């Protein structure tokens, strides 16, 4: 029954998406004159569709929770012996389930938009929801026609095949849902941008509606990427936190576009400038999340993220990609000329700095995009290549370094026009910190160029992040401004962590007999014993490592080499010792013929700062949303109050006072 309810809900939701599209289009057409009879269905259709899509997802979640082995998806991806949490998270640990999650979040955000967004003109709202329905329809078609999650088996399986053990981790509960919600939040930004473009409503009021969606999506993407990076770091046992793997790039590209979009939409809201640019970034950001979905889900890449290699699905997503991105850019090309020019500004101004960084972000995006697609391109000519850090690191840094420099200065500039001389003290301070930081570090030894630059920039950015608050009464600084300062500070923190990891990491690889000791940095690592252990669905070899820092009290670390039996697969469970100034990372390998065990240990100073930085950036985004929404609610209250007062005055028959604006 469960599966049938889910499937029926999905079909109904798809039908409602059609209604939403048609009704939204009717709303768009009933510009003047009486509203089109169909137009009233737009918002209800979006809301009911959201309920149905979420219901379908909950049905699948239920099927996984009770391990209903008559459903093909459950039988091929779950196992009755798995811990409950991994049964639940396993719902989206496969192709069909993850697409259903994607569609569920898409419909839910469309429903939220339809239910709560009352500020936009009805026509713009109609166009927005029509576009949202169109996007949703494509994904419903994809799910129902080529990846039905509710397909039954003719004969129920006796036991499931289980979930890829690498995914049997709490990371699966956090990383995909946040990342998806972020991707999909960008779809709302895209629909809003299209709606505004179609109805020629690209103005600050529209930007204020779009901003929380962009900020929200960006916060979720930031958290999703941060969580994914930490998950890969501790789960894969390679000791790296970013591999420039195509699927990682697939999540980084929408983030870069969303970062640019978020800043540009703020300029539009505050200053009524950068109108077309904002719309273009809205289209670009969603294109990148579509491209990410294509890269990850189509099977063109071999990776732990590519659950199913099925050419039909790949071409389906590619067709959707072409349809949406091609359509969006066509509308953009046709309508962009009709968007009136926004307010002007000088090159040296806050807008100028934001535009510069927008361009730098786009350039980094281009670098990442080309590096990611290049292997796919060459494969068409039968040349097999892979592109890794030797390309991405320097090429991205060429644009990232000027971006960070401008990011330090930009928030200090005034809107519209400013003179560099006004902020010469701040400029001198930032330059001194940058140069001083680099000089200080180079004094202690020779380090690679990029980490060295990173350390200098981190020092300068950390201070520069709080300079905009200088000379202001801290209790009166708007919450959104605090958000900006904290997010920029987070960038400095993350940069510091990355640079330290790059410059100061110590590694030791050795074969050790039980009782033997190895030295890493100022840590002494003693292998006490190696014992077999067992878990609910795995057996493992576990090493007991006594780790003592500078002769202090030893701490026990227990890295494992695990063997799962369903599906049969081996994984390496690293053991981490976290200290305020870094992490010790230990992995156990094979046993040599003479009985010694391979041990690999890294000391990574301040590596945790990378993820603390990511969380600070997200926190800054959350503060910005809170601040903006509070101001907006206040403004709306004031407007209602003013109108009520004016109505009272009208009733009294006195002359109406003219409002200040």
């Amino acid at each position, binding site marked *: 029954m469960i599966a049938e309810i889910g499937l029926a809900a999905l079909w109904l939701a798809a039908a409602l998406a059609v209604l939403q599209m048609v009704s939204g289009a009717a709303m768009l057409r009933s510009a003047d004159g009486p509203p089109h009879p169909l137009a009233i269905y737009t918002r209800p259709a979006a809301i009911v569709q959201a309920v149905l899509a979420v219901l379908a997802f909950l049905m699948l979640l239920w099927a996984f929770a009770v391990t209903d082995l008559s459903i093909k998806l459950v039988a091929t991806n779950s196992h009755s012996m798995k811990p409950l949490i991994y049964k639940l998270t396993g719902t989206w640990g496969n192709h069909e389930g993850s697409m259903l999650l994607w569609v569920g979040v898409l419909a839910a955000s469309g429903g939220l938009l339809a239910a709560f967004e009352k500020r936009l003109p009805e026509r713009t709202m109609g166009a927005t929801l029509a576009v949202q329905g169109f996007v949703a329809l494509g994904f419903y078609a994809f799910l129902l026609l080529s990846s039905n999650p509710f397909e039954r088996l003719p004969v129920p399986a006796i036991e499931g095949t289980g979930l*890829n053990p*690498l995914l049997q981790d709490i990371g699966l509960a956090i990383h995909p849902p946040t990342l998806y919600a972020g991707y999909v939040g960008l779809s709302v930004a895209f629909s809003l941008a299209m709606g505004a473009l179609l109805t020629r409503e690209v103005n600050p009021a529209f930007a204020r509606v779009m901003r929380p969606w962009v900020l929200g999506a960006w916060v979720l993407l930031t958290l999703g990427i941060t969580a994914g990076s930490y998950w*890969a770091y501790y789960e*894969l*046992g*390679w000791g790296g936190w970013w591999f420039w*793997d195509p699927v*990682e790039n697939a999540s980084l590209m929408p983030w870069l576009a969303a970062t640019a979009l978020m800043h540009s939409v703020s300029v539009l809201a505050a200053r009524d400038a950068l109108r*077309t*640019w904002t719309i273009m970034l809205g289209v670009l950001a969603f294109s990148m999340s579509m491209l990410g979905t294509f890269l990850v889900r189509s099977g063109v890449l*071999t*990776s*732990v993220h*590519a659950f199913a290699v099925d050419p039909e699905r790949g071409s389906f997503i590619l067709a959707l990609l072409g349809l949406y991105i091609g359509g969006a850019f066509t509308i953009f090309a046709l309508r962009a000329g009709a968007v009136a*020019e926004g307010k*002007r500004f000088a090159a040296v101004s806050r807008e100028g700095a934001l*535009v510069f960084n927008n*361009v*730098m972000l*786009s*350039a*980094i995006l*281009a*670098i990442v995009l*080309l*590096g990611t697609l*290049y*292997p796919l391109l*060459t*494969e068409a000519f039968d*040349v*097999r*290549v*892979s*592109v*890794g850090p*030797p*390309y991405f690191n*320097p*090429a991205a840094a*060429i*644009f990232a370094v000027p971006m960070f420099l401008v990011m330090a200065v930009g928030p200090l500039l005034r809107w519209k026009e400013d003179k560099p001389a006004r902020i010469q003290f701040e400029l001198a301070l930032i330059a001194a910190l940058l140069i001083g930081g680099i000089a200080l570090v180079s004094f202690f030894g020779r380090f690679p160029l990029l980490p060295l630059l990173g350390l200098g920039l981190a020092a300068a950015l950390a201070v520069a992040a709080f300079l905009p608050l200088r000379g202001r009464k801290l209790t009166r600084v708007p919450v959104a401004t605090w958000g900006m300062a904290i997010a920029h500070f987070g960038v400095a923190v993350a940069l510091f962590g990355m640079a330290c990891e790059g410059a100061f990491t110590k590694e030791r*690889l*050795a*074969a050790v007999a039980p009782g033997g000791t190895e030295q890493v940095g100022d840590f002494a690592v003693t292998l006490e014993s190696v014992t077999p252990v067992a878990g609910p669905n795995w057996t493992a070899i576990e090493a007991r490592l006594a780790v003592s820092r500078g002769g202090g009290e030893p701490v026990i670390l227990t890295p494992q*080499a695990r*063997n799962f039996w369903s*599906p049969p*697969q*081996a*994984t*390496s469970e690293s053991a981490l010792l976290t200290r305020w100034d870094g992490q010790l990372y230990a992995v*156990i*390998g*094979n046993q*040599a*013929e*003479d009985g010694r065990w*391979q041990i*690999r240990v890294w000391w990574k100073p301040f590596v945790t700062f990378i993820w603390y930085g990511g969380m600070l950036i997200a926190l800054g985004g959350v503060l910005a949303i809170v601040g903006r929404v509070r101001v907006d609610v206040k403004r709306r209250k004031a407007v209602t109050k003013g109108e009520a007062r004016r109505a009272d005055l009208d009733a009294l028959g006195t002359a109406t006072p003219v409002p200040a604006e």
Partner: protein
Amino acid sequence: MKAKHQRLILVVIALVAILGAGLLAAWSLRNQANYFYLPEQMAAEPPAVGQAVRLGGMVQKGSISTEADGVTVNFMVTGNTADAIPVRYSGILPDLFVEGSGVVAEGSLGPDGVFLATNLLAKHDENYVPKELEGMGTEQAAKVAADTTVGLK
């Protein structure tokens, strides 16, 4: 300056930056892309010493030997022909790294003709087949593809 001019200048600057990024990418991709070699290709046209490349093939039977330090492994990688490339790797071996299984080694060729691997890509699920080993053409390649390795990511 007219509004139109400002917009034009902005567009030009953005285009120049993006084109610059594109050209830079194209140029450095040609230099930095990590090419994939089969053992016979590496024997016929060896890459420059120190250039980062990938080598993929089968681990020759009876060729795996561990050095005295317990962590350095030497083995031979063969392909469709008799050519075999010696590989040296220091690190923890992938669990399913055994004689006769497929392997993709990342690293570079040393001056002595030994391929110094910095990373061995390991099989972790029979569902995943690496792109590199697809279409090797022979029956052996089919076997390689069937029980072979991919990156852990």
